[in-house]
């Protein structure tokens, strides 16, 4: 079975641009969460979606937004990119949206902002 997949693998953007990152959860999983991992730090929670509704939001500016589609895949959008947005963006999926369910992480998208 395929695990969590993310695209693209790597991305280079310049300041002020917009970026869209994509995530496909494990088949049957209905919850998707996004994390930002800056070099040398642990991942930071950005969003959680379950059944296409936002379940949680971390301490990130409004430039960050996300959505979940009927097939449970998800997009993370970041507007007006800043140098500090350079990071590894991780997507995690789980069967349901509660903490009881193990989360499975994808390999991430490495975003570099120049």
């Amino acid at each position: 079975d395929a695990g969590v997949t993310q695209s693209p693998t790597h991305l280079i953007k310049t300041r002020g641009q917009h970026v869209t990152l994509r995530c496909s959860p494990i088949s049957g999983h209905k919850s998707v969460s996004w994390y930002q991992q800056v070099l040398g730090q642990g991942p930071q929670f950005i969003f959680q979606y379950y059944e296409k509704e936002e379940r949680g939001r971390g301490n990130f500016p409004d430039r960050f937004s996300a959505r979940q589609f009927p097939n449970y895949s998800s997009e993370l959008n970041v507007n007006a990119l800043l140098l500090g947005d350079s990071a590894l963006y991780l997507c995690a999926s789980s069967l349901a949206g509660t903490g009881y369910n193990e989360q499975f992480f994808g390999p991430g998208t490495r975003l570099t902002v120049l």
Partner: protein
Amino acid sequence: AQSVTQLDSHVSVSEGTPVLLSCNYSSSYSPSLFWYVQHPNKGLQLLLKYTSAATLVKGINGFEAEFKKSETSFHLTKPSAHMSDAAEYFCVVTPDYGGATNKLIFGTGTLLAVQP
């Protein structure tokens, strides 16, 4: 607010010797704690989790961790390190286990090096 602290950013051991990675937590109530491992260019993988059942938790690949409320600790151990254990390890707490969200709060990570 809940948090976890990993004081050691780097730990180096020799193959075949014990591994000890430290983690201390801060929580206003009984937390749910996890250890995740991140190998280079691979996704995070759950090693083990504590959810208020047995205080000694066994995970995959021979790792285990003991929840000590009196010390607010959840240290990760393994009796004998293998070269394949070289990776970054994260101690994690969830503020809402059993609730409506599955938000995870990660520590800063410990990079484990295993010397031959």
